[in-house]
């Protein structure tokens, strides 16, 4: 079972990202469940969402304490909370940022994508916020083998029809192509 | 098991013979009555019987003897008599 933790801020779509990854996994014959951090959601505040993916049905509901993958939707979150808390040995961290967070210390692999710029370029903005959830999923697909990029694009276009679906699919693809691993010396 | 539903059927005299509640009873003086049916319209009890020709009578089985009919009769054709 793979456990993924999404850290974002209210309004960025972390919950939707977790839901989409489960939908995509299901399409590929896997099982999953996704849930948000429970409580009142406030725009701008840190908000977590979680997903579990497995080859067999999942019925575990305890919270995720030791994620395999951490996806950070906003570089500010790094200052607000310890994003690598509980990360498994050799776990994967994916961060939406335009510069490498040099002081983030952990034992694992780090992937970077500037999803915010991708979304601004595509005008994927709702109420003034770049909605980076579909873009960051592209990065997740690049960094891990949890779901294929083609499946993600398909799921995105099933969730949003027409122009908006296409824009989100583009963001996802673009992020997939622009995501890179940072070679780090620990 | 048969389900017991709290439902009730329409019935005259649902609380019993309310005529027994009276202390006095209305008596219609048919000679004086002008058949205006005001007493019938204002009876709180549905116990003034109105006939085709607009003459009226009292259903003493259920009349509670409130006296509204006598009070409202414009020609004093109804008298309250001790019961």
């Amino acid at each position, binding site marked *: 079972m793979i456990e993924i933790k999404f850290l974002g801020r209210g309004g960025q779509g972390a919950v939707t990202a977790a839901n989409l990854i489960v939908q995509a996994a299901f399409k590929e014959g896997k099982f999953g469940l996704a849930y948000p951090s*429970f409580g009142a959601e406030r725009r701008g505040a840190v908000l977590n969402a979680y997903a579990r993916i497995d080859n067999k049905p999942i019925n575990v509901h305890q919270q995720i304490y030791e994620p395999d993958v951490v996806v950070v939707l906003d570089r500010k979150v790094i200052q607000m909370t310890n994003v690598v808390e509980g990360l498994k040995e050799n776990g994967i961290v994916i961060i939406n940022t335009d510069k490498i967070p040099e002081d983030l210390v952990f034992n694992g692999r780090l992937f970077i994508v500037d999803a915010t710029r991708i979304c601004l370029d595509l005008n994927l903005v709702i109420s003034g916020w770049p909605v980076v959830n579909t873009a960051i999923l592209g990065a997740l697909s690049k960094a891990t083998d949890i779901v294929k990029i083609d499946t993600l694009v398909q799921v995105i276009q099933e969730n949003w029809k027409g122009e908006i679906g296409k824009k989100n699919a583009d963001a996802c693809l673009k992020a997939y192509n622009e995501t890179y691993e940072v070679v780090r010396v620990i | 098991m048969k389900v017991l539903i709290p439902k009730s059927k329409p019935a005259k005299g649902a609380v019993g013979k309310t005529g027994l509640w009276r202390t006095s009873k209305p008596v219609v003086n048919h000679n004086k009555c002008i058949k205006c049916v005001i007493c019938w319209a204002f009876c709180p009890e549905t116990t003034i019987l109105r006939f085709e020709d607009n003459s009226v009578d009292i259903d003493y089985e259920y009349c509670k003897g409130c006296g509204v009919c006598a009070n409202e009769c414009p020609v004093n054709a109804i008298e309250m008599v001790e019961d």
Partner: protein
Amino acid sequence: MSIIEDKKSLSNVKVVTANEAVALAVKCAKVDVGGAYPISPQTSIMEYLTKYIETENIPMEIVRVESEHSAMAVAMGAAAVGARAFTATASQGLLYMAEMVYWVGSSRLPVVMAITSRAMGAPWILGNEHTDVLLPREWGWMVLFPEDNQEVFDTIIQAYKLADTTLVPVVVGLDGFILSHTTMPISIPDQSIIDNFIPKNTPKPYALNTEDPFTHGNAVHSNLYLEFRHNIFKTIEDSEDLVDEIDKEWSKLTGRSYGGVIEEFLLDDAEVAVLVMGASSGDAKEAAKKVREKYGIKAGVIRLRSIRPFPVKRLSKIAQKVKAIGVFDRNMSPGLGGMIATEVKFALYDLKNRPIVQSYIGGLGGKDVKIADFENILVELKEMVDGKREVEKVKWVGLDLAAIEKFLEEV
């Protein structure tokens, strides 16, 4: 077993939250009228329903009322003339609605209500807890509690069957947030299966009509009231088998069965078992497997699926096999114990060789309940069986008084 195993046969699979599963089930049950009032974590049920009505032309009336009290009143008024009715609430909303909930139970109107469990204030709290769902068990309602999103969908459908058959309304409880906001795949059966399973032309002796007018719910003398209460008591008491039968019938149609009143997990040879409701059952099952592997303890899980009717018969049978039951209550009866533990003890007291029953309280207000918690419970139960540990009136899970005392000092 409730999760979709054979995907090839599935014509209609959706990845949804349990709240959307409720709304989909209500749509598939062809509910006529619903009362809608927002409260977390129930709100999205009504959002989905209103979306279906306004964008998919579903023939259902949603009355967007001004309070939970009115939401249940709407369901009552609709059911009273023979319509299929639904509403949903949680926590404070249920408390505000309470008067109507009791009235509908006593009125024998087959309303179905979803309660997305949530703790109650003060202080303000959104987290999951089962106390609210359990309250209507004293109010003349059946109370069912599914484990995952698929079962939530299926149980709403089963609830209409149960309500229409017994003329007792049914609460379907589901774990707030832990299910209500968690997406999982569910399979939706063909509409014809549902239509045949819960036909609308069942006898409705309670339904007001102008052809044969009667009065519903008028005053009754004290010397006749006891009989009405007895009738509700007996109907619910006698429904234990019916819940099983409905579940079996459903499994014939869909291949999905949940064990009726109780799902039994690894109980055949079990010496100790934890009794639990809802989503945490999955974690409890993991724990049972683990303690079997790690310590060789013959552990099992009793998943209580029906709280009313309370499965006295089935529980008694299970109690003949196991030596200790740890009842994990995500609720409490202040000063006494867990509400379910109290009922389990009542149910088993008359047995000759009754097992140890240990009340555990935890997870209140949404505090996380972990697989490890259930492992501890199962290990403790084994120690009790072996005489190495005393049974206590109540044991608390995850209680950290030192932490809050530290805060209090700061205040």
